[in-house]
């Protein structure tokens, strides 16, 4: 009687372990897809907020009328144009990888993990450089620079500066997400090493 009880006990333990393993994998998978959708959303938000930054103010002008309305928009500075193009590329990358992750489920993941890791690092470089460029120009617009003679702009165009500042903050969040993604991909490859 005791000898027939033990194999049943061992079988029930094995079936419990087999049931426990798949839900963990699908949890990681859904978190992965959700984070990629979040990356796409953050990039699109940053682009939209920067494009809609527009303000018209009356400023002193050195020629006759001495006061004229002048509009500030994102195309005034090439750094902001680069920022918008880089972040729209990142948004396109986000939605492409979301589709690829959903269509190709974990069966083929090992081969695509390397591609994801390399592309994630490349995208991180692009988004980080765009954030840095826009941040540098916005900082001068905020504080001015007395040594070079560049006057500050944000005391006059306050709404424009708020739009630009929040867009840069969202882009910073997107680059942090990309760092997280690369770490996830590299550690998934690392975990598959047979010990």
């Amino acid at each position: 009687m005791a000898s027939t009880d033990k194999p049943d006990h061992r079988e029930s333990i094995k079936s419990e372990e087999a049931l426990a393993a798949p839900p963990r994998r699908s949890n990681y998978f859904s978190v992965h897809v959700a984070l990629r959708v979040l990356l796409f959303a953050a990039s699109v938000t940053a682009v939209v907020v920067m494009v809609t930054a527009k303000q018209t103010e009356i400023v002193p002008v050195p020629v006759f009328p001495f006061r004229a309305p002048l509009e500030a928009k994102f195309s005034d500075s090439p750094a902001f144009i680069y920022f918008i193009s880089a972040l729209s590329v990142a948004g396109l990358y986000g939605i492409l990888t979301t589709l690829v992750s959903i269509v190709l489920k974990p069966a083929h993941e090992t081969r695509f993990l390397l591609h994801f890791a390399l592309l994630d690092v490349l995208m991180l470089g692009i988004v980080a450089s765009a954030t840095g460029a826009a941040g540098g120009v916005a900082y001068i617009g905020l504080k001015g620079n007395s040594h070079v003679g560049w006057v500050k702009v944000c005391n006059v165009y306050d709404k424009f500066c708020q739009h630009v500042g929040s867009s840069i903050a969202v882009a910073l969040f997107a680059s942090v997400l990309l760092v997280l993604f690369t770490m996830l991909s590299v550690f998934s490859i690392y975990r598959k090493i047979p010990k």
Partner: protein
Amino acid sequence: MESQNKASLPVMDGLERRVASRSEGGRTCDLLLRVLGLVLTLAAAIVLGVNKQTKVVPIKILDTLPEINLPVSAKWHYLPAFTYSVASNAIACSYAALSLALAVSGKKGMMSIVVVLDLLMVAMLFSSNGAALAIGLMGYKGNSHVRWTKVCNVFGRFCNQVAVSISLSLLGSISFLLLVGITSLRLLKKSK
């Protein structure tokens, strides 16, 4: 039986040697990229750190008085973007030296921390590159909409040195990027 065992040994040796040489090749590439990153970021930090130019500019206040010669100087720490660039290049250079020492000594447990820090260095270097490039372009061309005058027609050598430093830093950040790529490639080959 004994002859069969003796014949199987050289084959096993060859396989082990091939696997070892592949991992050795990856390890050599890793060390080479770290040395390259160290040298390039060090050069970029130094080139921008010693950047200084003084020029005597004639300024005319009134038509009757003679021109006053005023010395104006351009230093790298007048612009916060260049300060950020020098700081991030210096941090990346010291990190490259530290990780080179770790990689040469061959400790296995540190690898995850090294990968994470490599990634953070990539992000920091690329953002400082973008900032310095944007400010340099602004100084080169000026911006008519905001009425920021260009500076590089007066300080030519300063702007040239800034351009050299940015290109060196760009090459250094690309080598850090390749480091992350090669680490993941090595991990993939080990997992197969």
